[in-house]
Structures are given as structure tokens and as C-alpha cells.
């Protein structure tokens, strides 16, 4: 499959970087064709500007500021997100990538009086989230996992009707050990390899 990996962490020496490397090697091992977007390395600007917001609903011109990203989401059949969960959600950098890149007419048609929103990303058949959380599993569940839901329910609704999802998380990162981290990487290899 054609797989887009969207990676978001500011530090090259972070555990998330190791997660990204594991994700890439696992996908390569499974014979996928891969494109990587490293948002921090690209110095992506996540704040949608006033000009973009004003032109948000204009077909064609609304993709211009983010053309290469739109090209990537139109190209892929599967997306894998690698990011740390901060404040139970996506880092601003990644949230802004959705805000600016997943524009109307490309990813969905606006609702009208007679019909609801129409999704247009049916070529995306699989979405995986591979993340790390400071919180425990229980607290994450209690809060309702806003980050997970933003992607795997909110954005998934724009993809194929039967789009499959995978969610992997290392909880309690602040008390992680070399063993827990290596177990998590092994889990990624196993679960993503099968996905």
C-alpha cells in the first residue's frame, strides 16, 4: 500500500523518534511504499492564517498554501501518525496540520440545507495512531482520549466507510523504563506489521 507517515516531535533524540524509526522499518519490511512528513523538520506553521481562513471555502485556491501536503493525502491509502499526546490531545503542530491541510472540496464537501457533510477521502482505507501518553490508561479513558477521537473518529469520518483503525499507546511515559519502551517498540513491530 501507499503509506503516509506523519511524524510530530521537536527532538531528534526523543523516544518518539525511535518510535518513528520503528514504524518506518516495520512498514518497509511489510513491502509498503512510504512517504514521510516530519512536521518539525519542515518547520510547518500550524496556525491557519486570516487569509487562509477567509479563502477556506474557495475550491483550488484553498490548497495552494499547503499543496505538497494535499498531494500527499491524495496519494496515500493508509496514514500512520506518530506523535506524543500532550494535554490528552494532539500537539498544536499536528492539530494545525489537520486545520490547514484537510480543506473543503478536497477532503469533504460542506453540508447544505438538504444534505450533510460529504466525505471525499475514500481512498484512505487504514489509519494508525502510534503515540505516547504521560497519563495512565485509566485516566486517559476517563478523560475520553480527545486526541485519539479527533483522529480516529473525527478525521476517519472523511475516509473510506470501512476504514480500519489501529491505536497504540505507551502510557505513563514519565515512569517508563528501558524495558517498557523496548516492549512498546516490539508491540509496534508486531501490531503494525499485521495491520
Amino acid at each position, binding site marked *: 500500500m501507499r503509506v503516509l507517515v506523519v511524524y510530530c*516531535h*521537536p*527532538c531528534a533524540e*526523543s523516544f518518539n523518534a525511535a518510535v518513528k524509526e520503528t514504524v518506518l522499518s516495520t512498514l518497509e519490511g511489510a513491502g509498503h511504499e512510504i512517504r514521510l512528513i516530519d512536521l*518539525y523538520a519542515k518547520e510547518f506553521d*500550524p*496556525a*491557519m*492564517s*486570516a487569509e*487562509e*481562513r*477567509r479563502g477556506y471555502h474557495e475550491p483550488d485556491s484553498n490548497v495552494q498554501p499547503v499543496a505538497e501536503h494535499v498531494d500527499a493525502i491524495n496519494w496515500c491509502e493508509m496514514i500512520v501518525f506518530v506523535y506524543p499526546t*500532550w*494535554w*490528552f*490531545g*494532539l*500537539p*498544536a*503542530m499536528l*492539530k*494545525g496540520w*489537520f*486545520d490547514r491541510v*484537510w480543506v473543503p472540496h478536497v477532503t469533504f464537501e*460542506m*453540508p*447544505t*440545507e438538504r444534505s*450533510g*457533510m460529504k466525505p471525499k477521502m475514500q481512498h484512505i482505507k487504514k489509519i494508525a495512531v502510534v503515540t505516547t501518553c*504521560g*497519563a495512565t490508561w485509566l485516566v486517559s479513558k*476517563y*478523560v*475520553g*482520549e*480527545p*486526541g485519539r*477521537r*479527533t483522529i480516529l*473518529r*473525527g*478525521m476517519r*469520518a472523511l475516509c473510506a466507510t470501512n476504514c480500519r483503525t489501529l491505536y497504540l499507546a505507551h502510557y*505513563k511515559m*514519565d*515512569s517508563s523504563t528501558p524495558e517498557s519502551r523496548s516492549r512498546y517498540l516490539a508491540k509496534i513491530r508486531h501490531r503494525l506489521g499485521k495491520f
Partner: protein
Amino acid sequence: MRVLVLFSHPVETSFGAALHERVLIALKKAGHEVDDCDLYAEGFDPRLTREERLGYHDLETNQANVKGYVDRVLAADALVIVTPVWNFGHPAILKGFFDRVFLPGVSFKMKNGKVAPSLHNIRKLAVVTTYGGTRLRAFLVGDPPRKIATRVLRAVIKPAAPVKYHALYDMNRVTEDQRKAFMDKVGTSLEAF
């Protein structure tokens, strides 16, 4: 009370900007001292940097890049957030405010690897927001931005502090009358804040 208003919308002619104006008027009418933080107008950069991430837990230095914002958060008695919901989450510029400013030593303390919320100076929270999606879709998605307010922020501020969540859904199809009714509801509620 001293109220910090966090506003995030880039367009000055938007309905969001009109809500922001209404909120400011209502709070001032109620006699509050208002600190208006317009994140776009102030050019806030929502990206947590490499340097900030590496020094995140260093209580001596982690506030350095955002000291002005930290001081404003800590000086406030109440917080009012005015924002649209985009893609079932907060706009990046607002999410980044939490990432960069709600630091250890500001909104929580780390005790033996556990998080202890500490933003107890905030005794009231209100959110004024608009969704493109319908209320049903938001419910099915799990309404992540509502949970950030009613579960995450609620847990960070003073225990048992009141939290108000004002939301207008299905923004692309609501009528002029519905918008006006929402505006009035927000105004009335915040005059009594």
C-alpha cells in the same frame, strides 16, 4: 474578579470575533477586570520548541520563553475561552497555548512521577465555542474539545470550580436567528459570570 479571556480566531469579521466582543462587553459590564488575550493578534507561536521540550521539567527555566503568558494565567481568578472548534479539536494556536504555557510549576506539579493539578487561582471557567459539525456528529465523535474543558481543564483549576460550556453546533447551516439567540445567551450568561 480578574478574568483572562483566551481568544483564537484569525478573522476580525468572523462570528467568533463577534462572540469575543460580546464576551468582553458582558464581563466589563459585570464589573470584572478583563485581560484580553487575542492569540492571533498577539502573534502567539503554538509550537513547543525543541529547547522547551528538553527543559520542560526544569522548574527554574521552563517558563523563560512564555513568562508573560504564565504571569497572565497565574494573575487571573477566572478563565474564559472563546474559540471555534475545527476538525473536532481546538485550533492549533489555542492547543499550543496549553502545550507551551500550562507547564509543570504553572498548572500542575510533578510529585513522584504523578501529576498534581495546581492552577487553583482559577475559580471559574467558561467556554464559548462554535462547531461546524452537528451536535449528533460531535456526540458520536466523543466531542473531544468539550472533554478538554469539562474533564481536563476542570481537573486543573480549583477543585469544584464551576464550568460553563456554551456551544453552537452546525455553524454552516444555522440561521441568523439561531446565531443571534446564541449571542444573547452568551451575553446574559457572562454578565452574570
